[in-house]
């Protein structure tokens, strides 16, 4: 695959075994780069094992916002001998590989940095990583002071001795880097800096979790499942501050039923899971449909079927999200495309659930939750918790038949009424009924809400004119990757439609499609589930499908390539 030429960003890849500490270098590196006022983007791919295996983190550093992975590797730091063979297809003559030649057992031409030896000189092998860190930071011409300061802070808790040795190690690497720069063997473009002092750096899980907290979420019940677990873990970490109830359920069935119970009693609640766990929640989803109970579900997709590839990515559960649960009832499916949007959309998910009394599913995936980059801090002044809970009077009826299908929602103990909810078909008071005329009214009531929901669908982002010859459509995590690819391609007649709500489809998508000529859909799955949905919902048949399902996200270059093919 042809690679995006080196422009004003530099791509660094760290590779090694699980447990070898790449995560530490990654964290230090990205933080320090950001402190240097560079834009940073990091994404990882890893095997399903706790130790060993071969994992990589790809980091982009640049002078403008970066939000997508690329194929090109400018600087590769392999910490283990598996890395080089695995990344072979991404290494070109332009790639700088620096590492411990002895440990890597390679005969590729690489810059030998005897990490182990140098580290031992400091008294132990554990400083190898910090040396590598220093090396990278110097090759990127960052400020040694900032590095030193941050290392001091980071290792501070572990004692002065460690701080000192790590700083020494970093400077050792820094020195090696400077030599490479000075003798001209390594030459990266000069990156200009911007003031991104106040930018925050978070990953997808954190964006979702913070959005949930901002959405008034008070309770999360879940069963661990990669890649959904990050959200509950983050919420557990901050549960004291935010007075959350964080409960690990015995299984996913319990989790969804707990969350529904919490909403019934008046607390906003969510669950987080992956495809297999969500499949187990299908009956509970239908329960929420029948009870007209709000509930928010974060579904972080991974490749299936079955256990599939637990630590990889895929957009393969859209149809499951769309149709899970028996019987007919409305739902909302959101799919944030950027970290910023993930925060606001998750926040909004709670308000939507509350307003329409339906389940709201937030679809992300492993790529999305594990990826991070810097973005401006969130503006809390533009959001609020819009609770629709009412104070009940004596004659309160939970399922009162209303014009728009929405019945005011009371909670037990608030006011004089009583709240009865029932999974059987029920009357207005929530009591079981076999009156078949009432059945029809209740079905109509539930389904009627869909038209209101449609009206408030989150509009797709449109990049380009609405009368383009070509439209390229993407959803969720793939949006930013397509965005960058399309930008680089620079075709005038190509408009990108980036969906952040996949069901019901937003009006602006329908509108654009009504005059579209040439369409391409890009999806991280094998069967084009969004394409199918668009066809089903609008009758519009997509011309071309760009699909990927090997467990990895798209890269910018790959998309530039395949998109060019499809539009030529």
């Amino acid at each position, binding site marked *: 695959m042809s690679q995006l030429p080196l422009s004003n960003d530099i791509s660094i890849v760290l590779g090694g075994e699980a447990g070898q500490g790449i995560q530490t270098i990654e964290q230090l590196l990205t933080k320090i780069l950001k402190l240097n006022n560079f834009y940073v983007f990091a994404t990882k791919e890893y095997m399903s094992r706790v130790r060993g295996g071969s994992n990589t983190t790809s980091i982009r550093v640049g002078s403008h916002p970066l939000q997508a992975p690329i194929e090109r590797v400018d600087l590769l730091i392999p910490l283990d001998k598996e890395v080089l063979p695995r990344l072979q297809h991404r290494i070109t003559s332009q790639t700088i590989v620096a590492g411990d030649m002895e440990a890597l057992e390679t005969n590729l031409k690489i810059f030998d940095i005897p990490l182990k030896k140098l580290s031992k000189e400091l008294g132990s092998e554990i400083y190898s990583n910090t040396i590598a860190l220093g090396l990278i930071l110097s090759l990127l011409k960052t400020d040694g002071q900032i590095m030193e300061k941050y290392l001091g802070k980071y290792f501070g808790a572990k004692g002065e001795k460690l701080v000192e040795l790590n700083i020494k190690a970093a400077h050792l690497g820094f020195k090696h880097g400077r030599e490479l720069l000075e003798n001209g063997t390594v030459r990266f473009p000069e990156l200009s800096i911007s003031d991104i002092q106040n930018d925050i750096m978070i990953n997808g899980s954190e964006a979702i979790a913070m959005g949930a907290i901002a959405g008034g979420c008070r309770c999360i*019940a879940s069963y661990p499942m990669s890649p959904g677990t990050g959200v509950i873990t983050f919420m557990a970490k901050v549960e004291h501050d935010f007075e959350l109830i964080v409960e690990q359920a015995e299984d996913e069935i319990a989790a969804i039923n707990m969350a529904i119970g919490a909403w019934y009693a008046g607390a906003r609640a969510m669950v987080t899971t992956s495809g297999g766990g969500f499949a187990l929640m299908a009956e509970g989803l239908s329960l929420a449909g029948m009870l007209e109970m709000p509930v928010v579900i974060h579904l972080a997709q991974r490749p299936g079927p079955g256990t599939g590839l637990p630590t990889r990515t895929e957009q393969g559960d859209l149809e499951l999200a769309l149709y899970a649960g028996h019987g007919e009832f409305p739902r909302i499916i959101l799919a944030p495309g950027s970290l910023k949007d993930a925060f606001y959309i998750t926040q909004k998910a709670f308000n939507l659930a509350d307003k329409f009394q339906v389940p709201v599913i937030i679809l992300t995936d492993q790529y999305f939750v594990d990826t991070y980059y810097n973005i401006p801090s969130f503006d809390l002044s533009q959001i609020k918790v819009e609770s629709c809970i009412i104070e009940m009077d004596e004659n309160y009826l939970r399922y009162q038949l209303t014009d728009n299908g929405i019945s005011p929602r009371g909670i037990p103990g608030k006011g004089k009424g009583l709240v009865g909810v029932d999974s059987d078909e029920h009357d207005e008071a929530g009591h079981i009924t076999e009156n078949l005329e009432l059945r029809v009214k209740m079905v109509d009531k539930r389904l009627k809400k869909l038209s209101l929901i449609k009206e408030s669908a989150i509009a797709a982002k449109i990049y380009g004119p609405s009368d383009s010859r070509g439209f390229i459509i993407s959803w969720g995590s793939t949006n930013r990757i397509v965005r960058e690819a399309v930008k680089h391609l620079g075709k005038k007649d190509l408009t990108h439609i980036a969906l952040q709500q996949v069901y019901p489809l937003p009006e602006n998508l329908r509108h654009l499609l009504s005059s579209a000529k040439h369409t391409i859909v890009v999806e991280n799955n094998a069967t084009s589930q969004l394409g199918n949905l668009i066809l089903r919902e609008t009758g519009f048949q997509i011309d071309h499908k760009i699909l990927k399902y090997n467990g990895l996200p798209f890269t910018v270059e790959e998309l530039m390539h395949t998109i060019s093919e499809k539009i030529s």
Partner: protein
Amino acid sequence: MNFDIENTDIAWCPGCGNFGILNVLKRALTELEINPQKLVLVSGIGQAAKTPHYLRTNFFNGLHGRALPPATMIKAVNPDLKVIITSGDGDMYGEGGNHFIHAIRRNPDVTAIVHNNMVYGLTKGQASPTSQVGFVTPIQVDGVFEEPFNPLAVAISLNASFVARTSIHNLDLSLNIFKQAIQHKGFALVDTFTPCISFNKINTRKWYEENTYVIDDGHDPTNRNSAFSKACESYPWPLGIIYKSPTKPSFEENLYIYQKNNKPAINREVQWDKLKALIESKSV
């Protein structure tokens, strides 16, 4: 307190033991002066699980087998509510078996009244986990051969905080046990023998009368080993409070949010300042 509900068409067969349970439950609630507005009855699906429809109170009639998870969380987010589960033997020990185990481990302050008729009533007579060996049904044509599920023994093995059995033919005992269970802090299980006159022709009211006895004061419900051996008794089956584990904190009490402050979770608000600080902490 009036729990009576008007104009209700009760779907149970005339003569069903569930009527007795309904009446005893209403009486217990009335005598305990429980406020219907602060009570939530939670159930799954089955004949027993229809009970909440026949009382004037809040109710959550969810899915078959899934009464305990919502009940646990209803109580957790609003500990001011009284939460009582009415469930069948299939609902609680069959489809709901995993929740039964883990709810006991959590020990939420809720009361579970299991209408144990040793059969699946609503679905017309298949074996339930508590059906006795030899019980013939349209599916178990050669009779049940699986070891009957002994809810008391299992609950004791999980160190449940309150484990009792009654039989609805004994109304006084049932009232007494229901009341104690409802007042108990922590998870209280009341396995309640009750006849299904339509589908269980073996374990009839008479059978329960003849095959149960009320345990006497000699039984020490705080001794786990003797409670276990009591729970394993059969022919006749013991009735009474079999086990009470030494005061255990409830699920809600264990939750961090209630440690300093007992304001129900539902009345708490987003901590915007802390959130702002949290977000900003991500700038380095």
